[in-house]
């Protein structure tokens, strides 16, 4: 084993890359849950986003068009969930599971011709001077556009929830939908918009995996990241900055276990590979004592006739 082969600069830089799909999916789900909806279909929306982004990038040669397609793909799939839970008033847990099962199949079907294909690369934003700084340069200024979008989105969601009227309405709908309805807000409309936003974010997160982090297409390549994103929202007690912190923590664990695998540590590969899931469970246990932060109407269906 040779631990000296692990470079701290590269470790931190790749940690940020590993954390981005999680961050994107979790920040989207945070908005959905703040609106009082529990969408368990994150994994499904991510994998559909991953293949939509991949296919469109390969066909058009533009990773940016691919990114847009991934967001559209995730959002379209989330419309199914919105229809089921908001109009047909179906059980949210079952509908979310349906979304994931359907998404895994659909993505496998769409990805038939794309196994082994290389997507066009999305360049890093090399900012002159800043990117060339030692240590700080490659960590902070040598990344791709989407990674910065993820950071920007976190800040935007935080500010919107905290300071704007839109954020206030969203939170009201999530905390007490009866009261929000009585005040004249369109509970269902707000929730549908939140679900679409969550879908687009998950799709973007998925495309980040297939276009930038891995970059290739394999069936089921999201491998539970969507579920970890759901756990992350609980971990973060529904606070955007803690989502960021959590994503980097999990990204760090993942990168570290991959590096340890590469360094040939004595622990078998399979046990290292299960560590992110085990740590997720551990974190869930530690943090689940405090349920006070959860939106009060989370998971409860709303129907105006009550």
């Amino acid at each position, binding site marked *: 084993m040779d631990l000296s082969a692990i470079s701290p600069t590269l470790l931190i830089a790749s940690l940020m890359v590993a954390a981005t799909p999680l961050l994107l999916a979790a920040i989207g789900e945070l908005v959905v849950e703040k609106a009082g909806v529990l969408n368990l279909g994150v994994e499904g929306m991510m994998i559909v986003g991953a293949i939509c982004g991949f296919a469109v990038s390969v066909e058009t040669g533009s990773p940016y068009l691919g990114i847009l397609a991934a967001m559209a793909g995730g959002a379209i799939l989330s419309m199914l969930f919105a229809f089921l839970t908001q109009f047909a008033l179906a059980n949210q847990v079952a509908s979310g599971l*349906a979304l994931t*099962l359907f998404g895994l199949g659909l993505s496998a079907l769409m990805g038939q011709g794309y196994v082994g294909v290389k997507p066009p690369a999305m360049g890093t934003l090399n900012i002159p001077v800043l990117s060339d700084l030692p240590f700080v340069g490659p960590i902070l200024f040598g990344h791709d556009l989407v990674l910065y979008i993820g950071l920007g989105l976190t800040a935007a969601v935080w500010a919107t929830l905290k300071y704007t009227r839109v954020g206030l309405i969203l939170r009201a709908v999530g905390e007490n939908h009866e009261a929000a309805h009585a005040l004249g807000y369109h509970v269902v409309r707000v929730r549908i918009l939140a679900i679409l936003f969550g879908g687009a974010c998950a799709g973007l997160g998925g495309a980040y995996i297939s276009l930038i982090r891995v970059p290739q297409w394999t069936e089921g390549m999201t491998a539970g990241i969507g579920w970890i994103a759901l*756990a992350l929202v609980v971990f973060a007690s529904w606070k955007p900055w803690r989502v960021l912190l959590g994503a980097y923590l999990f990204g760090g664990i993942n990168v570290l276990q991959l590096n340890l695998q590469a360094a040939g540590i004595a622990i078998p590969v399979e046990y290292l590979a299960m560590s992110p899931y085990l740590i997720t469970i551990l974190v869930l246990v530690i943090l689940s004592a405090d349920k006070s932060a959860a939106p009060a109407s989370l998971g409860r269906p709303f129907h105006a006739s009550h």
Partner: protein
Amino acid sequence: MIHLEKRPQPSQFWSLFTPVIAVVVTMIAGGLLFAALGKNPLEAIRTIFYDPLFGEFSFYYRPQLLVKGGPLILIAIGLSLGFRAGIWNIGAEGQYILGAICGAAVGLAFYPSESVFIFPLMILAGLLGGMLWSMIPALLKVKFGTNEILVSLMLVYVAEQLLASMSLGLLRNPEGHGFPGSRNFQDYPSGHNAEILAGTGLHWGVAMAFIAVIFAYILLNKHILGFNIRLTGEAPRAARFGGVNPTRLTILCMGISGALAGLAGLFEVSGPSGQISIDFNVGYGFTAIIVAFLGRLHPIGILLAGLLMALTYIGGEIAQANLGLPAAAIQVFQGMLLFFLLALDLLSNFRIRFAAKGAA
């Protein structure tokens, strides 16, 4: 304007007929999907739903119906108990894997013994393996209030890694020339889950599935525990006042579903699949969720839904071989079925009224 009016009680008629309508609508939507893939939709639907039952080679496919349906029914029966009480065990796939690993490990430990006790011992180990794996989310839920959906799911990924590790390491066949995978139980009579009646597909796991259906039916309709499960799902507050202990109920429901999933895994590994291998699990634990809902969480419904889902698997394989239909198309088809079912559920819980706006 369309107006929804909540029924005081879910409609019995629609509860029974929405699954049937959902299947028909899925066939239509599936036909459109197959047409989009450039296949003749009528031929594809006929290949999937008719050929395995009545086609030229149906003598071969009909037993397969039990082979594929058995584990689905067994797992879904367990899941349905929890789902009824609002306890969401989504990790049956992991419990299925652990049942297979534990059961196989016990059997392989005694290789090449010829004792008649080996197989019963393996069954016990499979049951316990699945149950212990389901106890992790159950105990974390009752002790710390941890979300059982997320924990049981995370444990699926852990179980998959464990499976890979077992088939590459501890349980690898010492005479397998270094290839991953355990000894094959088909060559180990005392640990082999053979067919009870040769050529019918009826192995011990299928028999167990039928027993589970009867057991669940009696439990839900005649036993106080079944009553408590139903009460907790329909009126949690009333259940608490009625003296139902939620902790015990959670552990019981999770334990039963884990044990049944573990049994399914053991019967599969010692029978149809034959060995522990890296890709031993094929998603029965997830498909069983669809089966449970399609069967309306009712034992008889689950029996029928399991057989129907088995039919889509077998028909899908025939369509794959004969028509070149991609395997993933069947997965999409199964997912669609769940969608339509959930959407059509609206009919059993609400009346649809067409009224002028503002009249209400």
